[in-house]
């Protein structure tokens, strides 16, 4: 994500709110990769992630006047829209129950001779087996690099609740890795 000074971002957002297409294009270029990546991590599906990212920026363009740059960072707001769209997607697909009933990864996946690609797939599987809120918290903080306050805002929970989700997620992963490592 390209970092820019908050006041610079606020100026661009004000211009977008006034209908400035050049400012929108600039913010789109800066934020699209990270929003697409977030959706991709959540959905594990590049095509669906592209649909979500597209909808996020269409809503940003249409509803930019409802966003107050003094109250939150743009990246927080965009992540929040993306998160809600991902949750809608899961609800439609009934994926939440599917995830909870998913089979545990087998220990055979953690053999020493696994190559990097297989390890990556194994970690993807472990993370996708986490309960949805723990997974969201982990992705927002560890992979998207957002602060605990930003992540808590996106998930609409307190910072304490977010920390609880994060520690439970990490403990579960650590336990699984320790149990299954040879």
């Amino acid at each position: 994500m390209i970092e820019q000074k908050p006041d610079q971002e606020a100026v661009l957002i004000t211009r977008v709110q006034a209908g400035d297409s050049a400012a929108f294009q600039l913010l789109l270029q800066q934020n699209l990769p990270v929003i697409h990546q977030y959706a991709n991590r959540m959905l594990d599906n590049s095509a669906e992630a592209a649909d979500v990212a597209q909808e996020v920026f269409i809503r940003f363009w249409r509803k930019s006047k409802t966003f107050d740059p003094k109250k939150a960072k743009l990246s927080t707001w965009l992540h929040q829209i993306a998160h809600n769209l991902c949750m809608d997607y899961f609800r439609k697909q009934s994926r939440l129950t599917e995830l909870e009933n998913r089979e545990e990864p087998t220990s055979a996946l953690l053999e020493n001779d696994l190559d990097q690609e297989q390890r990556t797939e194994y970690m993807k599987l472990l993370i996708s087996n986490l309960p949805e809120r723990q997974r969201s918290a982990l992705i927002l903080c560890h992979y998207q690099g957002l602060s605990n306050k930003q992540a808590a805002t996106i998930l609409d929970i307190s910072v304490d609740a977010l920390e609880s989700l994060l520690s439970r997620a990490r403990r579960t992963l650590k336990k699984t890795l320790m149990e299954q490592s040879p």
Partner: protein
Amino acid sequence: MNKVKFDHLLATYGAELEKWPEEHRITAKLALTSHSDWEKDVNDARHLDNHLDSLLSSYSVDRSELAGLEQAILDKTIYKRSALDQFLDWMAPAESIWHPALAACLPILVGLSIGLMVDIGEQYSLEDELTLTGLESATWEIRDE
């Protein structure tokens, strides 16, 4: 910072102190320098971090791959035009002179299609037409007399 607090933050944010909340970083660093035995827990947490980091680049998409998506978003936002604009563009394109002619024929086509669709309620056969024409001629003849 006591061990319970340190363990909680370690379990929450991992071994990388830079990822910890800003307000705890300095005290955590100081605590680590004065409690060298806590390093073992940090190393355990780092083991998990390394596994998690193996996925850091796995979902990143190449900038060029995003270009198409970016264009699609622009088409649906800043480049989106009204139906009237699209019709006017179609009417007077730079590359074709046929569209204005086709557009001029549009009212005729609309009239024809409406005429074919509308049921006027009375159907005249050829026989009726001839009878009516015959009556009209007879009327003229009577008037002439």
